[in-house]
Structures are given as C-alpha cells and as structure tokens.
C-alpha cells in the first residue's frame, strides 16, 4: 500500500516536473525568438500597414509584400555583405582554433612556471575596449597595406577571439581527468601524441563553443570593420547594412528586419546542429532532465 502510494507520488512529481520543464523551455524560446518572429512579420509588411500605429504590429492588416525583401537583395549589396561575413568568419574561426587550442592546452596542462601569468596576461589584454584600440590599429593596418580590404579583418579579429577562446579551452582541458593523459603517456605516447589522441577528442565540446563564439564575435564586430573597410564590395553585414538601409533619419525598417532574419536564422540553425551533434550527444547518457 505504502509502496504504491510512494510510486504514485513519484509519478505525479515527475509529471509536474515535465510540465515545468516544457513551460520553461517554451518560455525561453518565446523570449529569445519573439523579436525575430516580429522581424519576420515586419519584413513583409507594406509601408501603409507598418507606419500606422493603430494597426496590429503582430499580424497583417494589409496583405504582405516581398518588395522590401526584394529591395534588400537586389538594390543593396546585402548578398556581398553576407558573403564577406561568411568567409571572413570562417577564416577567423580557423585561425582561432589553430592558435587557441594548443595554447589553451599548454596553459592548462603543461605546468611551466610562466604559464599562469601568461594566461592572465592574455586575458588582461582583452579588457581594453576596442573603441580605444581602433585608431592605433589603423596605422598598423595601413602599414601592412590592408587598408580597405576585408583581409584586414581576417588579420585582426583573431586578436579579439583568441584570448577568450584560450580561456574557454583552458577550462575544458583542465576538466579532463589527469589519469587519461597519464595512461596514454605510460602507454608510450609522447606528450604531443597524448595531446592529439586523448585531449583533443575530449575537448570537442569546448572547441564547438569556440567555433560558435569566434564566428559570432567576428560577424558581430563593427568598429574595426567600419574603420578599415569602406568599399562596398569589401564590407561586411554589420557595417554594410546600416550604411545602405539607414539613410540620415530614414530607416528602411522592413528591409532591415529582413536582413536581421536572413543573417541570424542560418547561423542559429547551423550552430544548433553543431551543438546537437557534438555537445548534446557527446556524453553517453542524457542529463536525466525531463525523463
């Protein structure tokens, strides 16, 4: 009797737990994506629908139109901007991984006397706001002949993404149990071999986080992009879109929202896929949440 009562209570608790988790998940999704849903709707609204404050902003009063999306794609250089953001972002991610992964490992596991202070120093350097750095950097960029080329961004952005990535990876490498590495060393691997065979695979969630972080930092950055790149053909999304769609005191709101959706959604979908494949499925079991 008592046992079945306990079981029934546990089932009830589990059910409320499930409801609670579902509610929180959907609530979080609403908060995160609510503005984008609005962006999606607004991107296809007519002017006379959008600029009337009595109309419902969350649905259509007049039929939707693709004119503003067409304007974005045909009469602005948005496709060029999107392409520039993509390839510079990819290269920045590659450079970040190339530099940050070994450094994170070295600072976390190879206990040299200078590793601790260097780790702090690398992070310190990140505490200077870019609003201060961009002017001295213009001199560096122009001396390298990279003024007005998107390649200047490929050169500079890793300096922004590497320090935070090093710190992130240090955390993951530290979390790998020491015995795994010791075992590999005892088995006859060199340190480099142990690094490659044991540590790298264990740090894949961390590397995925670095990919996500570095790409988005690169795509989001605007101050250096503004200072160093002015030809339209070389601009990226974060500077190009405001230039073409914010003219003085005139905002092309619908086209702006179309740009927001077209940039954010693919990135979110790709990163969700990365997270699902490499992180959520990383461990043997689930967290036991919602079960």
């Amino acid at each position: 009797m008592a046992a079945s009562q306990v079981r029934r209570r546990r089932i009830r608790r589990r059910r409320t737990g499930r409801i609670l988790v579902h509610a929180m998940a959907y609530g979080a999704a609403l908060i995160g994506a609510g503005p984008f849903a609005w962006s999606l709707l607004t991107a296809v609204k007519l002017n006379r629908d959008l600029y009337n404050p009595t109309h419902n902003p969350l649905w259509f009063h007049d039929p939707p139109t693709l004119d503003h999306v067409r304007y974005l794609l045909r009469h602005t250089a948005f496709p060029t901007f999107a392409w520039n953001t993509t390839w510079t972002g990819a290269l920045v991610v590659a450079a970040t991984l190339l530099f940050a992964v070994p450094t994170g490992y070295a600072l976390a596991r190879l206990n040299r006397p200078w590793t601790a202070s260097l780790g702090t120093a690398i992070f310190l350097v990140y505490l200077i706001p870019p609003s201060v750095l961009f002017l001295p950097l213009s001199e560096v960029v122009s001396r390298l002949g990279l003024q007005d080329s998107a390649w200047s961004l490929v050169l500079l952005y890793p300096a922004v993404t590497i320090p935070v990535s090093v710190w992130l990876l240090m955390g993951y490498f530290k979390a790998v149990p020491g015995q795994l590495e010791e075992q590999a060393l005892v088995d006859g691997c060199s340190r480099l071999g142990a690094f490659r065979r044991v540590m790298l695979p264990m740090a894949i969630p961390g590397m995925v986080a670095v990919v996500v972080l570095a790409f988005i930092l690169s795509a989001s950055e605007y101050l250096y992009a503004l200072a160093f790149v002015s030809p339209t053909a070389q601009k990226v999304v974060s500077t190009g879109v405001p230039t073409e769609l914010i003219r003085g005191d005139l905002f092309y709101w619908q086209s702006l929202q179309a740009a927001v959706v077209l940039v954010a959604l693919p990135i979110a979908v790709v990163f969700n896929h990365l997270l699902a494949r490499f992180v959520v499925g990383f461990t043997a079991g689930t967290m036991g949440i919602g079960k």
Partner: protein
Amino acid sequence: MLLTAVRPARRQLLRGGALLTAALATGCAHEDEGAFATGSLSGGPAEAFAPPDHRLSGSLRILMWSHFVPTHDSWFDAFARRWGSRVGVDVTVDHIDLGQIPTRVAAELHAGQGHDLIQHVAPLPQFEPAVLDLADLVAEANRRWGPQLELCRRSSFNPRTNRWYAYAPGWVPDPGNYRRSLWAAVGLPEGPSTWDELLQGGTRIRRTTGIRLGLGMSQELDSNMLGRALLWSYGASVQDAQGRVALNSPETVAAVEFMARLFRSAMSDEVFAWTAASNNHGLVAGQLSYITNSISAWRTAQRSNPDVAADTYFRPALRGPAAALASYHLLYNWIIPKYASGAAAAQEFLLHYTANYAAATYASKLYDLCAWPALTPDLPTWLGRDPFRAQPPDKLALLADAARWSADLGHPGPTSAAVGEVMSTFVIPNMFARAARGEVSAAVAVADADAQLRPIFRRWRDLDA
C-alpha cells in the same frame, strides 16, 4: 554529412517554408511605385562641363554619406564617374552612414592613407591640422559665382588661424513642420510664427485632441539644432562673437524656463530619448502637431502616409524676444586630407560639382540647397511648383529665402572645434532636458552647462596657441 543528418521532420519544415515563400511571392501586394526611390529622376537640369585648368590624372577616391534620398546617390555616383572619364581620372565613390563618418575620418587620418575627398553633413573644424587649407578653392569659387552664403562660409573657415578647413557648397534648412488642420482649429492656419504662439497653440491642441508637439531634448542631432534656435531667439548663445563662453546669462535662463513650460504643457517624455528618426515617426503617424526637421519627414510621409503629408506645411524660424533664427539641419563640409594624392583632382571635381549644384538639388528632391544661390536659378520655380508631387505644389516656397532665418552653429562666433565637441557631448539638449524634467531649476541647469563648456573651450584654445 549535413544532408544525411536532416531528418524527415526537418525536410517537411523546409518544404513548408518553401511553399509559404512561393505563396507570398505570387499572391501578394506591392508597394506604390516610387516607394523605394531607386533609379534616377527624370527632368533634371542639363549638365554643364568646363575643362579643368590643368591636366589631371591618377585616381580620386570620394567618401560621402548615404543620402536620405537614394536617387541622389545614384545620380552622384554616375555624375562623378562621367566627370572622371572626361578628364582622365579614375573616380570611385564610397558611401557610409552619416553617424560613422567622423569615426572613419579619424581612422584614415591616423593611418595616413585613405580617401582623397571626404564629405560630412556637419562642420569638421577638429580635423583642421590634418587637412588642406582650401583658400584657393574658395577664392576661385567666389570669383566664378559671387560671394558664398554667409552661414556656409562661417561653417568652413577658422578666423583664428585664417584657414579654410573645408569647402561648404551646400546646406539643408531646418524649418518648422506643422499640421495645418490641427493649427487651423486653434486659429493659426498658417502655423505658429512665434515661440509664444507655439506654446499657446500647442497647449490648446493637446488639450482638445491629445496630440502633442515634439521638440527633442535628446542626445541626437535635431535636439542640438533646435536648442540653439531657441537660445538665439531669446538673444542667448553658447559663445560670443569672439568665441568665448557666454552661456550663463539671464536670456539663457529665460529660454530654458520657456522650454520647461512648453514641455509641461504640450509634450511627453518621449522627447528625452529620441533618435534622429523619432520626430519623423511621430509626424508620419499623425501624433505630433509641430516638429522642426528638414523636408525629409514630409517626403517620407508622401510615401507612407499621404494624408498626413498633404496636411503638413512648413514655417520659417519661430520668433522670440530677440530674433527669429533657426539653425541649419545639415551643412555639407568637404575636406581634403593632407595625405591625399588626388588633391588636385578633388578640387577640380568640387568646382565641377558646385557648377552643377542645380542637378544635385533636383536629384535630392530639393533637400540640398546651394551656397551660391546664383547657381540654382530654377530653385524658386521648383519650390513654387514642386516637381515631386507636393500638395499644394507651392508648399516649399518659403524655403526660397531660408538663409535669411538660418544661422551657423557657432553663431555669433566662429564654428570651431570647441563648438563641435559641445555638439558631440550634447551639453545643450541635456541642459534643456534637466530643467524640463524638473531635476534642477533652470538657473542651475544653465550654470552646470556653462561649467561643462569652459574646460572644453579652454582646452581647444590652449591647443591652438
């Protein structure tokens, strides 16, 4: 790998999305023609060309703002390239958002390399040490076309160093925009002509219809301009004619008190965090009875809310106890950095551009006005009969003598770098805002603002010395 990972459920979602897009594409509505203002305008004046005095070569890189009227940019880019091909210069034009121009200029000057010719929509006195003195260019322009408009001259010349830090061929006036139907209902069908009429009429409109008026006290461009307009109307000013700080005066306190009263009677606290586009929005939505703005708000309304556009009319500067003066809305400054290799070509281009300013005025839908009025003989005709569907066609006629009631930023003193820094740190709008919100009394707000100005002026003066 990605494709195989796409589960059937996701494929269904993609298919649904594709169908939705197709549906949107086929059976949906369209904006009116002219909603996007792409392409070029027809009916503009003919282009004049005078060969340059010296042979030109090399390249000319121009940087300028994204004009609020896109047809102007299409016209300008083609115009510049046409000139380039005729004189043998390779011309490229880059556009950026106006808020980003000072940043970009600073970066190029520090790099020692970049564009040869840069345009901004406000004076650039702070860059004087790093740009060419354009005295010869201005002298040549005056020789060809007569004296330059005083407010443009004062916004490009530094009397202390006797250098021309910029070339100012054009400007944009800042009239009052009012809703005729609302003001006619309170007995002022021609709109307010004094600040007191604004206060009384605006209050009555608010009481009867709930519609407010909108004078910004925010950290943005429009607020800076109209704040100074109010100060000048009361006989107050930021500096005196010699460029010394002169803000703390009974006139200034009177102006600030007036603004506080105006706020309490006829405005809402939205005006404290406006962007440059906010008063446009308020007007287009029919929620503001009076704003000060260039014709951009009304041109926007022509496209998105034609009823409001037809009901919107313009007024010159409001009269106060001392004067009727408004600031300009924009003032074009073209600078040539010292590092520019295309400096000669740049100056010849500027002369060509100025000679054809009528085309620029037309392409900007009468937004840009020329500093040499003789170059736009058709302007009064256009203003009297708007080629771009104003209703009634003579709506813009009052802009023909806009220079009479407009003054430069530093009035009565020079437009110096100190004046520029005061603008960028929004001392004047915040002075009005603090008093309007009742945070401090008008006298204290003025005294605090004056105290903020003095270190700025002192520093730039020490630098000059």
